[in-house]
């Protein structure tokens, strides 16, 4: 069932267009991430859903109600900010109970709900603390509890983990997903961190320059990027310009080397130029008899990235990266050495845009 609907949303600040023809439907209980670089319009879109910005045109509908011109304090939408935005003059309990106090709930009701929320975020002991007595991660958990205490119809999170260090970020990420799934609350999450979006979301909306580039689940976004931007922004990617050799058999060539493409080249003409993309982890050193996509290469560089080893190699005149798991038995080639690598024809993507 459609819970949130954004229809033809457009937002301009003077001559500059921040969001252009944004259309999205979000189902009840779904976790959707807006992913994109700074200035792509993701936060502006979120702020329009929250009511802090008015769309230049288009509509925001929640549960069938048009919220486009409803002020933010009348929307029943909870929001968590990057900078926590806890009220410094209030204790943890007062912060969490503030929305309920504004809603005119009784003291007992507020007390009960505050305790329930603090238990949900496992911060019962911090009831009387002030925000300045908490670490960043704890403050953000309180901010989450505060947003959830009012039982909002929709939860909005605006880069909530950006100000935290890597370890806390990872822990809190799990926590956010656990709570969201437990409460079944529809959630919009804004981030520029692909790992966060991939690990948390039911669906990801990849944005660039105010427009939606692709909407899909994390698996689709990572494995089947539809545009060059998505392919480049999500994960690392090798791209090369190739010339179509045989559209029917799905063969293209770069630097005089033929490449088989499982998805085919239908709709392309012989001699036409296409952008080919291969994820670094889809390459392997040749260890089996394969007929398609076997390339001679020269090893240019080797970099250890912890659990992964990145091998930079030259195929023809083009530079490619290959990622391989770092295990003790791994035999690495010598820099400058000649090797053969391969990739499945299913690993070769043809990018549009």
């Amino acid at each position, binding site marked *: 069932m459609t819970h949130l609907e954004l229809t033809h949303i457009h937002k301009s600040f003077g001559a500059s267009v921040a969001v252009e023809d944004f259309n999205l439907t979000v189902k009840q209980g779904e976790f959707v991430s807006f992913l994109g670089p700074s200035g792509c319009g993701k936060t502006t879109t979120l702020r329009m859903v*929250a*009511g*802090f910005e008015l769309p230049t045109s288009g509509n925001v509908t929640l549960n069938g109600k048009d919220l486009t011109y409803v*002020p*933010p*304090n*009348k*929307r*029943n*939408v*909870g*929001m968590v*900010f990057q*900078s926590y*935005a*806890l*009220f*410094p*003059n209030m204790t943890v309990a007062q912060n969490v109970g*503030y*929305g309920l106090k*504004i*809603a005119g709930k009784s003291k007992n009701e507020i007390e009960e709900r505050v305790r329930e929320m603090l238990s949900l975020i496992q911060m019962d002991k911090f009831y009387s*603390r*002030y925000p*300045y*007595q*908490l*670490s960043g991660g*704890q403050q953000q958990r309180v*901010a989450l509890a*505060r*947003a959830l205490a*009012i039982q909002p119809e929709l939860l*909005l999170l605006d880069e909530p983990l950006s100000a935290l260090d890597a370890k806390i970020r990872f822990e809190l990420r799990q926590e956010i997903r656990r709570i969201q799934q437990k409460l079944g609350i529809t959630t919009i999450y804004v981030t520029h961190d692909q790992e966060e979006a991939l690990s948390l979301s039911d669906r990801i909306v990849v944005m660039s320059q105010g427009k939606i580039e692709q909407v899909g689940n994390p698996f689709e976004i990572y494995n089947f990027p539809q545009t060059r931007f998505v392919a480049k922004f999500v994960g690392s990617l090798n791209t090369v310009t190739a010339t179509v050799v045989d559209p029917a058999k799905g063969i293209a060539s770069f630097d005089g080397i033929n490449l088989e493409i499982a998805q085919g080249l239908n709709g392309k003409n012989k001699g036409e130029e296409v952008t080919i993309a291969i994820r670094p982890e889809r390459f392997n050193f040749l260890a089996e008899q394969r007929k398609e996509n076997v390339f001679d290469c020269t090893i240019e560089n080797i970099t250890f990235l912890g659990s992964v080893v990145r091998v930079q190699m030259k195929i023809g005149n083009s530079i490619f990266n290959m990622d391989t798991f770092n295990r003790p038995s791994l035999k690495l080639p010598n820099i400058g050495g000649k090797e053969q690598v391969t990739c499945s024809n299913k690993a070769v993507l043809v990018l549009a845009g």
Partner: protein
Amino acid sequence: MDEIMSRKRTSFFTIFWGILALLYFFLPIYGTLDFSLRMERGILGFKAYKIIFADPRFWEGFRYSVTMAVITIIVSAAIFVPTIYWMYLKVPQARPIMEIITILPFVIPGIILVFGLIRTFSRPPLQLTTSTFKTDILMIAGYVIISMPYMFRAVDVGMRSIDVRTLTEAAQSLGSNWFHVLADVIIPNLRLAILGGSLICFATVMGELILADFLVRPALGPYMVRLGLTKAYEPAALAIISYSLTWFSLGLLQFFSSRSERQKQQVITT
């Protein structure tokens, strides 16, 4: 070795200039205090102070000035807090203009302000010098203008120390209307800033002379001047009382700000 010598030299000059500055500031005050205590020949005593405290005109002036100061503080805070809040939220680019406007009372001499007020408000359409009540309104308006640079800066610094926009949005997302945002979130977090502005406002109004003198109101400033025309020791005692009031205000300000700092230093990071 050179570094140690240089550090010693720096610390010697720091102490030297520090002592010189203290003497420069405190010697005249000490002189005034000493003089105020020598009303009776050959002994140090509080006779001048007793005379002042026994004078009903002093208490009349004191009560009047305190009342004016309190009303000025309330009016200033009521004008400046919402205005500066609105400026931060909606037109942050207007801040330099506001700064110039609020610095005008420093640039325009008090006498010009008073003549301007008297000339403008002594004739229709808005005649405010026909009764003491109306004149008091005019006085408060003048005091608000005179204390504007202090109140503006104090509140401005307070606003800069909090994330006004995000706190407002957080409160709104929890259902708060504008009144609640201001009353529950913004003003409590500006408490110290407003207190600072208020105490400086208080000290300014308590010592103000020109406005009260020209509008012929029984404030403490004109009383001080009139006393100085006919007496010797009592004005010195009054000056010390006036200083004490100002320092008491500043002491309160210091006490509250250091208490707030102490609270913040109890940060527990777990």
